[in-house]
């Protein structure tokens, strides 16, 4: 099996996050591997391990698109257990919206599948920065693959894929045939951490850097010129500040109701 896992380098949500520059793009200085992509990586590793792993010729390729620093997301994926890494990097990609991102990623997936076909493209349910969840569905559309998104469980029997989805009004069972695109939620597994062995092994693994020319994408198709949306203005919201804090002295429930009444919430 050949599985591509999309891994994104995103600003660490533990710190303040910022938009910068004229195009109001996300500042990626303090960035990490998007936590939600770790679930996709874990799902990929479990699928190949159940089939004999790398020794049996199965591969998990971690693919990241992003500036120079994004290679760290690829490195971390290799430490966790991905077999190969690919970093798609090009100045022209900066400031791509979901549509332009999915165009570049679709071209990269096609490029990586040119010699031996890709069976599965796995992603997290959303990136922890943009959080639009647009890219997985747009990638499926562009690659003409069945999309199995928000999977909270995943089983593979030959080329038959079965997943569970936990929707608002109902839970669904979904079936598709490989090749397919799957996005997974944080309900699907418990991602493993890199261990010492993994960190050492990662040093010997290859990371391929691809540019737009390698994947046959014209620079005008991505970045602000290839994007179909533009951010016109952004305003930092004043951080929420703490209000009144009281300690319960046996009447806090009543004070709570007083507060709600004062707010006209009753």
């Amino acid at each position: 099996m050949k599985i591509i896992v999309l891994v994104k380098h995103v600003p660490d949500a533990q710190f303040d996050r910022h938009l910068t520059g004229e195009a109001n793009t996300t500042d990626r200085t303090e960035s990490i591997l998007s936590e939600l992509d770790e679930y996709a990586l874990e799902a990929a590793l479990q699928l190949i391990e159940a089939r004999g792993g790398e020794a049996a010729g199965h591969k998990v390729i971690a693919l990241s698109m992003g500036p120079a620093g994004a290679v760290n997301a690829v490195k971390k994926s290799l430490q966790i257990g991905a077999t190969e890494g690919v970093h798609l990097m090009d100045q022209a990609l900066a400031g791509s919206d979901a549509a332009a991102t999915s165009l570049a990623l679709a071209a990269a997936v096609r490029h990586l599948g040119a010699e031996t076909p890709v069976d599965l493209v796995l992603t997290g349910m959303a990136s922890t920065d943009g959080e639009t969840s647009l890219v997985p569905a747009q990638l499926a559309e562009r690659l003409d693959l069945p999309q199995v998104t928000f999977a909270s469980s995943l089983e593979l029997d030959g080329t038959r894929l079965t997943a569970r989805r936990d929707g608002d009004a109902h839970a669904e069972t979904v079936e598709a045939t490989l090749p397919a695109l799957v996005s997974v939620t944080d309900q699907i597994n418990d991602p493993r951490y890199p261990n010492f062995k993994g960190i050492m092994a990662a040093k010997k693994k290859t990371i391929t850097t691809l540019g737009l020319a390698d994947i046959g994408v014209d620079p005008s198709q991505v970045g602000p010129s290839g994007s179909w949306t533009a951010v016109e203005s952004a305003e930092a919201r004043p951080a929420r500040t703490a209000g009144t804090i009281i300690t319960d002295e046996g009447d806090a429930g009543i004070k709570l109701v007083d507060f709600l009444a004062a707010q006209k919430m009753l």
Partner: protein
Amino acid sequence: MAKVLVFIDNPGQVLKKSSLELLTIARSLGEPAVALNGELHDDVAAALGAYGVQSLYRPSAADLNDYLVGPKASYLAAAVQTADATIVLTENSAEAREVAARLGIKLGAGVITDVVAVDPDGTAHKSVLAGSYTTAAKATTPVTVLTVKANSVTPEPAVTGTAPVTSTVRVPDTAAAASARITARNEKPASGRPDLAEARIIVAGGRGVDGNFGPLEDLADALGAAIGASRAATDAGWIGHDAQVGQTGKTVSPQLYISAGISGAIQQKAGMQTAKVIVAVNKDAESPIFEIADFGIVGDLFQVLPQATEEIKKRRG
């Protein structure tokens, strides 16, 4: 005048408030039309007329619900072309966003999600990075696709009602070719409380409820509120995953969010910190939730909430 197409997926017996909001926004942007999937009940048809819908489109295929997203996007793309619409509005649910995502690629149209307001020129306002920025964005393409969050406007019927002209849109035969099939669907039991995404008031519980959502449910019923939860509470199986608020649950912006027994981890805050008023009840004065609470009570939720519920009932006599 711009033609604005609202996608309404399986409305059921009555139109949801969020659909009425979309129709209200649509009217402020141009001539409203609806692309409907699923059955059309009388109440829904009446509401569409009351909200000034001029044209109603329905798919030629009846099996769109049997597949995941792909065929719905194909249908909607055909409807946009038939209606000659330049703006498409959908709700902001996970599935509607994905329909919008694929529609965007099919039409070469920019998609903006999580929208809370739309200007007459199509500029969309939203907040990003867990509510730390508000942005204005615009599609640069001939067609704009917007997914709008619930509670963005107050629904208002049109001054003069309409009798929408209904037509059938041909769904391409190939629509289902590369789509995943939905082989089973289990309806979740309805709680009788307001829908979490649309609720004006939410009472949310975390690990601190220790398996007992009873006091929260009582307070929620007294306030007409929906029940939410932290991931710790849903992971423990005390309440369904669909109650989860946060980064990997629902993003909500109610008028009032009462957080009880929730520490306020960044992933939880990401889903609720745009609430207008935040009340927190937590035993631990050091909990990060107190950093953003308008009214915080350091105390035991099992004492505070029942007392509040009693007091509300008493005042209402």
